[in-house]
């Protein structure tokens, strides 16, 4: 099991943070372009999923899988979006994303008066703690 990378978007679609762990192949785009495409795709897929759903959806889109990797998606009701690419065997990625939200993003960004929403996250403590959490996770280790 392994974790490839993580994107965090704010409610306006601005890329707040990008982290990379085991990504062997790059897309050949700048990270800004990549994030823009990623957000656009998520926006469309989310709307499509909700539109097509035969019953009323609450959570909606959660993940997609390809033959090589899975994209996991978690969005808070306030519109903060977490996207994590992992390999196909990873379990409990959603829980990990929730942990990143409650233990890292909220603690070190939301409660940090120096951080203004809508900005790229510059806080060193956030980066260190995120890296720690990801590397401690069983999804990363095995």
């Amino acid at each position, binding site marked *: 099991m392994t974790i490839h990378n993580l994107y965090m978007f704010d*409610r306006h679609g601005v890329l707040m943070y990008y982290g990379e762990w085991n990504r062997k192949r790059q897309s050949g785009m700048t990270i800004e372009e990549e994030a823009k495409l990623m*957000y656009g795709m998520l926006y469309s897929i989310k709307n499509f999923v909700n539109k097509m759903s035969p019953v009323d959806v609450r959570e909606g889109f959660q993940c997609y899988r390809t033959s090589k990797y899975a994209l996991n998606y978690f969005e808070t009701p306030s519109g903060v979006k977490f996207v994590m690419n992992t390999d196909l065997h990873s379990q409990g990625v959603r829980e990990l994303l929730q942990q990143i939200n409650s*233990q890292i993003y909220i603690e070190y960004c939301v*409660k*940090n008066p120096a951080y203004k929403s809508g900005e790229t996250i510059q806080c060193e403590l956030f980066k260190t703690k995120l890296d720690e959490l990801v590397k401690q996770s069983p999804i990363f280790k095995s």
Partner: protein
Amino acid sequence: MARPGARVADSKKINSELFTLTYGALVSQLLKDYENAEDVNRQLDRMGYNIGVRIIEDFLARTSTARCTDMRDTAEKIQSAFKMYLGVNPTVTSWSPASDEFSLLFDQNPMTEFVELPDSCLSLKYCNLFCGIIRGACEMVQLEVTSWFVQDSLKGDPTTELRVKFVKKLEDAMPAGED
């Protein structure tokens, strides 16, 4: 600054008197600086708004709550947030016929425990911070609301009543360059 040790979201306790007095000191300093109760109300509302847009993230993560389906749902959550952050349990009443407007009644309010308003600032809304917090927090979950004080026990009313009114639902942000 975020505290390095605070990793798990636990409900830390602080002395409520210290909190009450700190808030009192803040309001009275604002009164000195602005010399006008209306301006102080506005400032308190602004400060509350800034608190609200952040505190909502904490609230959502701690309660892992889903999106509200109607205003009654929202009212219940606002009520539980007051309990969680302030230790008071306001009553939700006085629904408008269209269910888009309600009141929160506060029997007790730790914020006003040692407070007596002098005659010179009768237009001061001492707890206007609350209105801002509710507005800010709701805005982050795509709800535009307005809130204001109807009654204030500091001004001799029998209770403190905070009114919340639904204005409109805000739409999800569109990605740049897409219509």
